[in-house]
């Protein structure tokens, strides 16, 4: 009996010794990992150039929950240049360089020159949640590229910031084309838009909710614009983030309770001209009222920006078609400014 126990114990031990290392059958080698990395690098190089209208990165502003801010990137893979369009700024020439580097974490997509991305990293999180202009490349597919900010924020914080899933720019995003549909810096664009009463109607696609707000774009502070640009433009006065042309701004008076065209206005948020877009981000902290009005407006319409996809002019009647997008680039809000009933 004792022997049986011993023999059984012996056999069991023997089995354990032989079996225990089965799971050590390592199939991934460093060579294979390097191979995967090289494949990803090659895929990324190719894929970046495979969207005629560019790729879109949606960044999150602290001013909105569902609306995300688009940054469109068009890659020239021959010269490693990238052209970016965001709702901020309206510079026509906005090319910068990019590099595909290797890092200890794998393949890196590095926006190596000053661009909308480096600017957003520097700006307040109301503008976007970008925490680095260098990104770890997590996956590359034909229709999407997943990237993650290498740094997560301040010095000595963990590696790995927000993750973005880049997708191909939808064809109907006319605002992201080079052609300027509405640039209120220009006199011809101001006709029947500036100093004109209108109504802003917005449709919230997921809920079916409709909102109408009385609207009036004030004149553009032309007399003081130069000095305001030098001292008050949050991008220009912040050299590290200064990648756009100097701002153009005006009061976008609103009447929340009276959603019709009228002469009465309750509040005066400030709108800034973006590339075929208007954005409403409080910035002039010395003027608490304007700051609060702009903050209130962005939160009440649930988006810090409205892109302009079409401007229809019939005589003096003007319709400005606007939209705001969600995280995946789907229309979250559609609507229009209209200066006639």
């Amino acid at each position, binding site marked *: 009996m004792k022997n049986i126990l011993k023999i059984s114990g012996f056999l069991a031990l023997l089995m354990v010794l032989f079996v225990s290392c089965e799971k050590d059958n390592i199939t991934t080698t460093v060579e294979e990992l390097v191979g995967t990395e090289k494949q990803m690098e090659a895929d990324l190089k190719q894929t970046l150039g495979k969207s005629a209208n560019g790729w879109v990165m949606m960044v999150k502003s602290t001013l909105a929950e569902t609306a995300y801010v688009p940054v469109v990137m068009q890659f020239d893979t021959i010269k490693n240049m990238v052209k970016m369009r965001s709702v901020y700024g309206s510079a026509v020439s906005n090319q910068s360089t990019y590099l595909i580097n290797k890092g200890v974490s794998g393949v890196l997509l*590095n926006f190596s020159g000053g661009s909308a991305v480096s600017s957003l990293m520097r700006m307040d999180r109301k503008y976007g949640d970008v925490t680095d202009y260098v990104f770890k490349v997590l996956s590359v597919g034909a229709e999407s590229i997943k990237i993650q900010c290498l740094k997560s924020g*301040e010095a000595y914080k963990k590696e790995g910031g927000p993750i973005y899933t880049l997708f191909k720019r939808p064809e109907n995003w006319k605002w992201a084309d080079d052609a300027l549909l509405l640039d209120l810096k220009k006199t011809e664009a101001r006709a029947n838009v500036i100093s004109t009463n209108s109504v802003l109607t917005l449709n919230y696609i997921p809920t079916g909710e409709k909102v109408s707000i009385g609207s009036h774009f004030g004149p553009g502070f032309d007399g003081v614009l130069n000095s305001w640009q030098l001292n008050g433009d949050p991008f220009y006065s*912040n*050299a590290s983030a200064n990648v756009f042309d100097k701002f153009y701004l005006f009061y976008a008076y609103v009447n929340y309770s009276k959603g019709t065209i009228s002469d009465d206005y309750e509040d005066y948020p400030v709108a800034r001209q973006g590339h075929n877009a208007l954005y409403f981000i409080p910035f002039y902290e010395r003027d608490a009222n304007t700051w609060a009005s702009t903050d209130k407006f962005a939160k009440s319409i649930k988006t810090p920006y409205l892109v302009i996809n079409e401007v229809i002019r019939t005589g003096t009647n003007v319709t400005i078609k606007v939209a705001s997008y969600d995280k995946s680039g789907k229309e979250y809000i559609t609507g229009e400014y209209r200066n006639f009933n």
Partner: protein
Amino acid sequence: MKKLFIYTLLILAGISSFLSCSKEDKVTLEKENLDYFAIINKPKEKWNALDSLCDTIYRDYGVKIVYEYTPQVIRPNDFYYPPTYDKALAYTRKVMKTLWLEPLKKNFPDYFKRETPIEFILMGGYYHGHPTNTDIAAGAGFNGQFYRLGMGGVNNLDLSNKAAVHDHVVTLWHEHAHNQDVKYGRGEIFDRISIGTYYKEAWNTKTEPQAVTDGFFRKYGGFAPEEDFATTVEHLTRFPKNDALTLINSNEKLKRKYNLVNKFYLDKGMDLHKLQSIVYDLVYKK
């Protein structure tokens, strides 16, 4: 029997512990050629206009202009932001080539050969210790190393504004003075001139005339000896010789600092008064 059994067990255990993991020998150390931080030069077919200009400058002057940032260039816990492409291109052409390297090589060939840094980093903005805080630290912020120089504020420098350009080039020579200080040392005699009278963090509470009375060319020079040295160089690069000497002769400490700094530079082949007039003429008269 019992012993034999135990020995067998031990031998088997021994053999298996040596053999059982032998399949792991497929795992090797990382290949020697996998260098995550290798500096790979951009292939020529990918060059843009600025890359070509930087290559010409490198061949003519031996200075590598860095306008693209990678984790190899920028430490991960400091926050520097790259300049925009258009601004960097115009800046390199005008400031780097026309206002810095060309006149330096032509007028001070020996000084150029020995004292020119091998890297110059263009910064869009300034040094930040935090990614989004609005506070900014000193101008270039990283010029305490003699092989590399850098200037901040490229994104905001209006190249059509002569006063701003002049100020920028003078500041460049201030930053380069930090290079020289680190490389050779300004010396104990210099440090003894104002010992015990530096303003430290209170420098910004002083007025410029007060600073001159206290023996500093600028109130910022009163911050610390290294800035005292750099602002002396800056003053001589900024103001015409006669004006500079009038001020210098009004104060014993300024005179002693001037004599030391002027000799420090002359010994290396640089006449700061001559440099001043060259820079001034290039900015204002061309």
